[in-house]
């Protein structure tokens, strides 16, 4: 996912920017104070960044993100831009985009938030030492505070990026699971088959209904076979959802055939008192398919009559 997409996903507009800046207390005077430190930042950038990477490379788990010297040189260059960005005197949407780009890059390589947060603390500590060395205590403290505000602002964006990326991943997975759990097969002209395997909870029941209805209309189906041989438990809820689906299929002008009804399922349905209306039922899928063909005016015959 690129940073543009994150910007949209996080709804980062002028209003959000203003609200977040107010919450993190990133004022114009902070930005001005940091911009005044530009010369200081450029002077110390190499030293700060070197110390920063020394720490990252000294830790086994963070070291693996930097496979070779070239990689280190490259990220150091990027890190320098990022570092100097703190002293640009800006905190506008362009700045946010810049930060989102960094967050997106970290997410891409799988650098988890703990390393990011730990490294950022180190950053702040290093800078505070440099500030105290170069300026009187009062100015150093003010500058450190401004820096802290902007750094925390940055971190909030980075963490939002991680969350947004995860939510997006979960969404994609759920979509994939949905498609896998509600397969619809066209077995013959205008005859659809939906074989159900696994547990049917209320979310899946509603997906089953929606998927099936859309396919009935798309394929102009007249007959729909739902095979529940692979559903381990058919309780009142499952039975009820099947009846609902059947009712909805009828409203579209198609008929439902329920197959895969084993003796335990038949027993449960009757004992629970579930009324099976508006649908044909058969024990096995094979009979269901035969029934659908028969209803459609077709027959399966043996090529050579036996007996």
């Amino acid at each position, binding site marked *: 996912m690129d940073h543009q997409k994150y910007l949209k996903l996080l*709804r980062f507009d002028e209003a959000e920017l203003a609200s977040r800046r107010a919450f993190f207390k990133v004022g114009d005077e902070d930005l001005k104070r940091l911009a005044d430190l530009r010369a200081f930042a450029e002077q110390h950038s190499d030293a700060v960044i070197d110390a920063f990477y020394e720490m990252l490379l000294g830790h086994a788990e963070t070291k693996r993100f930097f496979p070779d010297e070239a990689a280190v040189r490259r990220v150091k260059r990027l890190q320098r831009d990022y570092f100097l960005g703190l002293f640009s005197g800006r905190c506008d949407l362009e700045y946010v985009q810049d930060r989102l780009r960094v967050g997106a890059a970290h997410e891409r390589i799988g650098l988890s938030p703990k390393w990011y947060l730990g490294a950022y603390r180190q950053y702040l500590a290093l800078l505070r030492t440099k500030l105290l060395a170069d300026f009187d205590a009062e100015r150093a403290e003010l500058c450190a505070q401004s820096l802290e505000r902007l750094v925390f602002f940055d971190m909030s964006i980075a963490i939002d990026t991680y*969350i947004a990326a995860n*939510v997006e991943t*979960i*969404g994609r997975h*759920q979509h994939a699971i949905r498609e896998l759990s509600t397969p619809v097969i066209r077995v013959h002209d205008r005859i659809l088959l939906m074989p159900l395997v696994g547990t049917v909870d209320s979310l899946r029941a509603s997906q089953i209904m*929606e998927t099936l209805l859309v396919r009935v209309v798309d394929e102009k189906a007249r007959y729909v076979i739902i095979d529940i041989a692979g559903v381990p438990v058919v309780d009142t809820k499952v039975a009820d959802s099947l009846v609902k689906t059947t009712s909805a299929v009828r409203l579209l002008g198609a008929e439902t055939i329920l197959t895969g009804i084993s003796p335990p399922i038949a027993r449960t349905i009757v004992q629970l008192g579930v009324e099976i209306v508006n649908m044909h039922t058969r024990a096995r899928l094979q009979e269901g398919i035969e029934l659908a063909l028969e209803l459609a005016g077709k027959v399966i015959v043996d090529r050579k009559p036996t007996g």
Partner: protein
Amino acid sequence: MVEVISRVEVPIACEDDVVVVRRRVRVLAGQRQLDSFAVAAVTTATSELVRNVFVHAGGGKAILEEVTDGTRYGLRATFIDEGPGIDDLERVLRGGYSTAHTMGLGLSGSRRLVDRFEIETEPGKGTCVKIEKWAPF
């Protein structure tokens, strides 16, 4: 934490307002990434609830809000009237209650269409129904 992105208040004064309010809901729901089934569900629920306000209380208002919880978008609609209220709420919600205008089926039915359904009613004072429908993950 649910955050309100936009809010609009629409009066319910005549029968044509049933059409006006549900149209606005349909547009808002479509904008907020609700899928077509969810749009139909929330539009239908709105239609039922606005009609209830008009038929049973002679009028009132609807408040339509676009909401987000940070990861998903949703639509919240609140229907308020100062009508006679509902005496036997439990029975109405079970769908067993039926008047000439099928309030029973309207209320119990719309409840089954949304992700959140809250109702407050006091005989003689009025009724307030709040519904929410959220976009899937």
